[in-house]
């Protein structure tokens, strides 16, 4: 009973907040957006927050994080940190086009590059590029079934809009860094839209970090539209403090011949849920959906992947690997849908887990739903430990037990790390994984960001036993 009460309290607060601030929320919105917000709000109103009685949420309980007195910021909070310092990325030689976001707000200046590429704040884009936004916004995100997406659609204030025109190849990777930093307990809704034109290509690194130790709930929705023959290399790096919750819903829509590779690397976070939905809407499109999670303490990671094979001749490949230590819990829920007539589909799905402690828990559900006959689909899931024989082999060659174990865990993770296409990023992640496995890092240092300099008011819980 308590659970329901707590949830409805936050939900009620949100409802009151929406009614009170509707004017502010919808100011400057074109009519279709006002309508969409109302519709999304009605959806959220009807069903509230997801709870563990729902099939998709049975292993992820939001009630603990929702049991806080949240603030819903309507405008960016005043900054007391040096932006340049905070966002300085610690990946050596990693030359990216940086898009800083603070509590969801776009902090850079909107720009239109000479080749037509637009990188802008979402709020601004709605006013400046109405046709582009109206054509794509809200078309891929699912507000009917995903309540957090409905919540986001009703309440979002800002986010990032990226548009790559036809035939443009972005050589320089784009890096979005969303930091949560606020003196208060905040609940933020971030909304991003990425549109790739025909034959275009881009590398995108999406980082979620927190730089203070406050409780925060970040509910992000990202819609990605990939037109014919476009290519996207997408990475999600997640480093949140142990008190925070991050629910990240990403909706990819692929047209004919589009090629997507998305890689979610979760190194830290109190509660992380990645909802990744891919719709293969044009023939010969391909999606690689990969993920790696290294969780310890009481962290919780939930990866939900839905791949919708709507048309024939598409391929998809899913591989998620995780190592869980201490009291950490992990969830993997992969769903491949092959619609009737989506013949000649190849879909593979795999989830491999290693439990290091007896307190760690993994729930995995690789799920296939197939309505076409000329398909090749397979899925697999394993839970286990490191191979004793392999360890014995290493030990028999003079490698100490601990080192042998480390080597095997590293090899386990390397499957995912090796698939990172950007060399600098791969080296950095590789390094982080090694350090993390050796137990040499505090949770702070794993961060790709440089944020442990003295002048900043940063406090992280450091587990001395692991240093």
């Amino acid at each position, binding site marked *: 009973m308590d659970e329901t009460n707590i949830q409805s309290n936050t939900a009620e607060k949100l409802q009151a907040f929406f009614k009170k601030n509707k004017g502010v929320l919808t100011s400057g919105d074109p009519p279709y957006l006002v309508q969409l917000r109302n519709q999304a709000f009605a959806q959220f109103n009807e069903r509230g927050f997801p709870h563990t009685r729902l099939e998709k949420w049975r292993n992820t309980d939001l009630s603990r994080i929702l049991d806080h007195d949240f603030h819903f910021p309507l405008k960016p909070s005043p900054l007391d940190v040096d932006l340049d310092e905070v966002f300085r990325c610690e990946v050596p030689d990693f030359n990216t086009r940086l898009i800083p976001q603070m509590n969801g707000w776009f902090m850079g200046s909107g720009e239109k590059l000479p080749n037509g590429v637009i990188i802008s704040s979402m709020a601004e884009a709605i006013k400046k590029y109405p046709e582009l936004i109206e054509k794509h916004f809200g078309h891929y995100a699912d507000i009917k079934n995903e309540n957090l997406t409905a919540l986001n659609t009703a309440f979002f204030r800002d986010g990032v809009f990226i548009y790559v025109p036809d035939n443009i190849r972005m050589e320089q990777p784009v890096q979005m860094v969303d930091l949560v930093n606020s003196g208060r307990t905040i609940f933020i809704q971030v909304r991003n839209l990425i549109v790739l034109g025909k034959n275009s290509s881009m590398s995108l690194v999406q980082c979620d970090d927190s730089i203070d130790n406050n409780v925060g709930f970040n509910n992000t929705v990202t819609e990605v539209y990939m037109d014919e023959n476009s290519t996207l290399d997408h990475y999600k790096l997640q480093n949140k403090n142990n008190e925070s919750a991050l629910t990240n819903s990403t909706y990819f829509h692929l047209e004919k011949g589009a090629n997507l590779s998305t890689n979610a690397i979760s190194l830290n976070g109190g509660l992380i849920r990645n909802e990744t939905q891919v719709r293969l809407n044009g023939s010969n499109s391909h999606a690689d959906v990969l993920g790696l999670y290294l969780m310890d303490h009481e962290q919780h990671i939930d990866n939900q992947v839905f791949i919708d094979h709507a048309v024939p001749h598409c391929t998809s490949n899913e591989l998620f690997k995780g190592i869980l230590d201490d009291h950490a819990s992990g969830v993997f829920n992969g769903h491949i849908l092959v619609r009737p007539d989506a013949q000649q589909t190849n879909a593979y799905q795999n989830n491999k887990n290693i439990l290091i402690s007896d307190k760690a*828990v*993994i729930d995995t559900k690789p*799920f296939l739903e*197939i*309505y076409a006959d000329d398909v090749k689909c397979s*899925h697999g*899931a*394993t*839970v*286990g430990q490191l191979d004793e024989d392999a360890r014995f082999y290493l030990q028999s060659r003079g490698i100490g037990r601990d080192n042998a174990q480390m080597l095997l865990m590293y090899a386990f993770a390397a499957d995912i790390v090796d698939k990172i296409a950007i060399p600098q990023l791969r080296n950095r992640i590789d390094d982080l994984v090694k350090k993390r496995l050796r137990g040499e890092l505090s949770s702070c240092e794993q961060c790709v960001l440089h944020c442990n300099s003295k002048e900043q008011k940063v406090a992280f819980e450091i587990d001395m036993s692991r240093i």
Partner: protein
Amino acid sequence: MEKETNNILHELTQSEYKYGFYTDIAMDMAPKGLSEDTIRFISAKKNEPEWLLEYRLKAFRHWLTMVEPTWAHVHYPAIDYQDIIYYAAPKRKKELKSLDEVDPELLDTFKKLGISLEEQKRLSGVAVDAVIDSVSVKTTFSETLEKQGIIFCSFSEAVQKVPELVRQYLGTVVPPDDNYFAALNSAVFSDGSFCYIPKGVRCPVELSTYFRINAANTGQFERTLIIGDEGSYVSYMEGCTAPMRDENQLHAAIVEIIALKDAEVKYSTVQNWYPGNKKGEGGVYNFVTKRGICKGTHSKISWTQVETGSAITWKYPSVILMGDHSVGEFYSVAVTNHFQQADTGTKMIHLGKNTRSTIISKGISAGRSNNSYRGLVKMTKRAANSRNFSQCDSLLLGDRCGAHTFPYIKAENRSSIVEHEATTSKISDEQLYYCNQRGISTESAIGLIVNGYAREVLKKLPMEFAVEAQKLLSLSLEGSVG
């Protein structure tokens, strides 16, 4: 080849359900509908002790508070539980002493089913407990078994003969409030089989029950309880058919198996209820709860099933591996055709240390049917060094059918290993071409490939069943691929 395939497909859709006949025998029925009175009626008819009536009523009261589950991947119109006859028994003229006294028409039924009691009794040495609608008619071989101390009789007989055993174990594996259909069964179960194998006894014959739904508008709610005492072994077979009817018939059974220390129970089913006609009308709703518990160390429970019938199948034969070193197995072939829907699988709950389980599931879907595998493997904290291997493959024949896999895996300790793998595919043109090239017709080639595909499971069946299962497979499927 396209044309040939179409012909074969046509043939298949024409193939009628060969067990669809109706035996006109006098029936003793309860009035339609479900209430406490119905339950008292059933209980009184069967001359049950007070505690059993209480057990039924408690289950019924709980059932009233429950809602029908909707999570399964099946669709069917709502069932009107008041429009079902909960008790239908062939009228008995007198106590039956020998086979000759059995209603000749009933014997005829069995003959059509291909399980001639005399034949079986004399030649194959199989003890048969035949359940028509709700009441066990005649149990063969009981006397032979009795010499070994084995109790194999109808459930109602067991209630009269060994009430303390029934009372001790009834509802211990599937409690009356376990799920909606289990609660319904616990309230209105009519009859079924009871089997007790004493300490250290290896049952010399394969025990067998045959279920058949005969009367219209009757639900069959049988209850089977099998207890393998320490160090015992038994192989138990169950076969099911139902006559052809346009209306849907409900079947909600419970099977409970208890294996004590070092005991082994092997349970095999060939389920061939009427699947409905090719338009998807009629057929049996098969909502069954089957569960076994490996209570003692080194005990073993093995489920083998061949599912070819029923309009809707919804069953998950499960094993609770409680004793250390216990073993659970599940082998299944599920075939769906026309508009059939199957949502079947298993649950392996590992509680004891060093427990092992194996799941092999082969789904075959054809026509416009939907075939789902749904399974749970759970390694609890205590179940150190446990092992599971699951494999569930689906074969799709035709582009209007669906094959789905919902495996749930939950691991809570670091020393257990869980492996799950699954594939979905169709019979490839290359395979068929290869066979054609060597002079094997398309129809035979498909039979060959499907039988090869299901072989892993079929070879686990007892001899008597393996032949029937293979025939059923051919009957349901041969030639339905292109």
